[in-house]
Structure formats: C-alpha cells, structure tokens
C-alpha cells in the first residue's frame, strides 16, 4: 500500500506518486493485479475487490436474504481468492474465476446451514397466505407487482427454497431464477452437464410439489365456498 511512513507528514511528491500508483492499479489488467497482489501489494488486491465486489455481492444475494450472510459469503470469497491467487493464470476471466469461488462458497454455506422441514400452510404468515390467494385468483389474468408484494414473495420463496437441498436451491436459483444456461452452471459448479440437467429436473419437481402442498388446501376451500 502506498503511504507515508509518518501519517500527516507528506513528501511533496507523495501525492503524485500515490496518484500514479492508484491510476496504474485502475488501468492494470486483472492478471497484472493478481501477480502484484501475490507479491504482497495490498493496493492491487484492493483494486480487485473494488472491481468485483459488486458482482460477488449480487451473486451471493441470490442465495441469502440476510445482508450479514451475504457479507459473510463475500468476505469468505475474497479471502479464498487471496490465498488461491497463485491458481489464477489469466486463461479465463477473473470474473468467471471469482464466480466459481462464490458458487462454491455459497454452496458450502448453504450446506452448513440447517435445512428446514417441510413447509405447511399453517407455517405461512398472513401476508404470504394472502399473496398465494392473490396469485391463485389472478392465475388467468396478468399478474401485477408492487414492491411490498415482491418482498412477501421473496420471503415465501426463501421459505420454500429452504425446504430443498442446497444442490436443488443452487440449480433452481441459477437456471430458473438467473436464467443461466446448463453450460454456465457446469462452469460455475464443476458438475457434469447431465448432473445439472437431472438436478434441475428433480429440483423443479420438488419445488412445484412444495408449492402445490401450500395451494391444495386453498383450492379445496375455494371449491367449497363455490
């Protein structure tokens, strides 16, 4: 890190030097930054973080709804990245390399968290129950959204997802949520294409069955009232 030995006392040229260093960091290629960070240049690693932390945060947000968990995952990603800088040879993009680390880190965190048992209608909050009722009522019409309802839906999605295995959550979030292709998931996870397809097929079934269990009592109640 470029800095004066004596805080508050600056050499006349130190500002220019720092300006030059920060500029050189900003303009340096990912590979050059990785090499410099490996050699102990902290400013190079900070530049890597500055470039890619929004992406890592965005990706980790797909798996966790609590900000603290997202931050924990992102921090773990960059700590791992620092120790594994030697394995980054610049053949692929650094973004892809970090995405792979993020995927594995999030998967490990999901695996370490306790899986919830089956979700029942009685477990739903009033808002979630109302949201489901509205969705069923609007099944034939175009669904409209509001930020409040989106938040309720995200809560409910989180609860349904937590009844699934971490691998199921991963493929559903990536393929059905993020619109990632099977090939992209293969690159992120290191799984085979057939494993990804089978996992996605089964995960969709389990997710659908989970939602269906929540809908069934409402459908019965609806038919009785009719």
């Amino acid at each position: 890190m470029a800095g004066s030995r004596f805080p508050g006392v600056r050499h006349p040229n130190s500002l220019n030097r720092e300006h030059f260093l920060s500029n050189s960091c900003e303009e340096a290629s990912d590979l050059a930054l990785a090499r410099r960070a490996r050699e102990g240049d902290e400013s190079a690693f900070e530049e890597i973080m500055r470039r890619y932390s929004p992406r890592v945060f965005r990706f980790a947000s797909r798996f966790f709804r609590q900000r603290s968990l997202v931050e924990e995952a992102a921090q773990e990603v960059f700590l791992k990245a620092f120790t594994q800088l030697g394995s980054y040879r610049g053949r692929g993009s650094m973004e892809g390399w970090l995405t792979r680390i993020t995927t594995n880190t999030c998967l490990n965190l999901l695996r370490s968290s306790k899986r919830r048992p089956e979700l029942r209608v009685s477990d739903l909050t009033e808002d979630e129950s109302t949201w489901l009722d509205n969705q069923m009522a609007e099944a034939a019409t175009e669904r409209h959204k509001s930020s409040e309802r989106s938040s309720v839906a995200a809560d409910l999605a989180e609860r349904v997802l937590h009844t699934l295995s971490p691998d199921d959550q991963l493929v559903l979030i990536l393929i059905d949520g993020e619109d990632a292709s099977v090939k992209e998931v293969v690159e992120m996870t290191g799984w085979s294409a057939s494993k990804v397809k089978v996992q996605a097929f089964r995960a969709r079934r389990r997710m659908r069955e989970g939602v269906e269990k929540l809908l069934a009592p409402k459908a019965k109640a609806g038919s009785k009232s009719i």
Partner: protein
Amino acid sequence: MKDKHIVNLLESAPLAELSERDLSEVRAHACECAGCLQAFEAAQIATLLLKERTAETFEPSAFFHTRVMATLRERQTTNEQWAWSRIWRAAGALASSMAATVAALAVLTFVIPGQVTTVTPETTAFSAYSAEEVILDHGESDEQVSDGQVLTTLYGADEDR
C-alpha cells in the same frame, strides 16, 4: 398430447423457456385434467417466486473492503504466529529427544560398566581354576590326595582278590 399428463414437460425446462407450442399443449391439457392444472399453477407460482427471490440484491457497504483487508492481515499474522509456534514445538521435541538420548548414553557409559568392574583378573583366574577343579577333581586338589591313598586305590583291590 391432450390425453397425456404434462407434468414431465413442466419440469424439463424453466417455464419461460417452453415454446409457445408446448405452452398451448400444456394449457389445453390443463383444461381437462384437474391434477395437471394444479401442477401448472404451482409451477407458474414457483417460477414467479424464484424470479422475485433473485430480483433482490445487496451492494457492498463502504467498509467492506477495509474489513476484508483487516481480516486478511489478521489471518496472515495468526498464520505466521502459528508457523513460529510449530517450529518452536518441533525444536522443543527435538531438544528433548536429544537430551533423552544423551542421558541414556551416560547411563550406559558410567553406571552399567561400574557393575562389571567387579570382574577382576583374580576372579577370572579363580573362576578358571574352579572350572578345572570341577572337571578333574571334583573340588579336591592333587596335594590333598596322599600317595598312599592312590596306591591303595590302584592296588588295594588286587590284594583283596
């Protein structure tokens, strides 16, 4: 297709990726099959839930980079300390094993040979003599047997006859 359940089709790909032809077949079948209609609705809601879930995102806080760098330095310091303590422990084990070896050698050199020193040349000679004595004379020396006794032993029996 109308008489075939469409559940497998729903799960073969994300709903958004189903072709218009597939969707129209799904809808046509769902109109006649209550089970598939419920599955189709559930699949639609599941897709919507996933979309809502992945629409949320967090941005890194202002202190995130500082915190990561601080954790990194802390871990590096801990690793260095751990490496030194490992070297120190290894050195301690080596030193204690060397001390044990020296002590064992000292015991072998000074204590055990001290017990052997009781074996003097005199005793060795005595032991040799004693062995000869046992083999030849059963503890009696030549001087202890008189000539008369020898003669009696050799010729006494003949005289008796």
